[in-house]
């Protein structure tokens, strides 16, 4: 058990983030709703803002994919993604808190747990990238 925990720690501390970031950005790009739906679809659902939110996600995914060789710029895009993630989560939580008759269902707990894991993931990637960028800037 201790070995397993040690292995988790080693993965988080020593392993690189680039393959994960690459696969995630590609998956995020192809999974983006802007590619598969249009504004009218979201207007019909009464959520036109969601379409624009997805558009920003698409822009950031393209940004990440096109700047993977330039760590300082890529870190900026990753930070934008993180901020967008925080924005969506806080907005969802605030809506949930302010809605008068919403029951706290299990599906919400599940969604929030997954959102938290994604949040940790992006924080981890961003921290790794930024630390690398800072070290490169200082040591040349």
């Amino acid at each position, binding site marked *: 058990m201790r070995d397993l925990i040690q292995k988790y720690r080693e993965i988080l501390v020593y392993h690189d983030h680039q393959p994960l970031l690459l696969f995630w950005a590609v998956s995020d790009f192809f999974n983006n709703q802007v590619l598969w739906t249009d504004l009218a679809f979201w207007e019909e659902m009464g959520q036109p803002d969601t379409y624009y939110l997805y558009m920003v996600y698409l822009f950031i995914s393209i940004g990440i994919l096109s700047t993977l060789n330039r760590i300082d710029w890529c870190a900026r895009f990753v930070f934008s993604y993180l901020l967008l993630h*925080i*924005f969506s989560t*806080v*907005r969802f939580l605030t809506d949930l808190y*302010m809605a008068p008759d919403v029951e706290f269902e299990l599906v919400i707990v599940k969604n929030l747990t997954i959102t938290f894991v994604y949040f940790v993931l992006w924080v981890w990637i961003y921290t790794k990238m930024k630390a690398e960028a*800072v070290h490169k800037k*200082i040591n040349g």
Partner: protein
Amino acid sequence: MDSATITAIITCLITGLLSAGGWKFYESVLKGRSERRKEEILARNAYRDDLIERVDKLESERETYVKALTILKSDVAAMRVELGFVKRENEYLKLKLESKL
């Protein structure tokens, strides 16, 4: 803009500012550490260069003294030989003087 969006925007702004400040601080800490390390390396290099200079100087001095010592040794050897001759001549003269007396 509804209040949920405003709350989310404010949260993002605070997060952004805190993150930027945190990284600036981390960068300054790393920069200070790196400068200290560079200063240590410079001091060590200066000490090493000084040692190299001193060793070079001592080597050249040593060569000069070795040459002088060689000359002295040969002079001493020559003097020793000469002294031997002088001693022998002195003995001979003593003997000659005694026989005359």
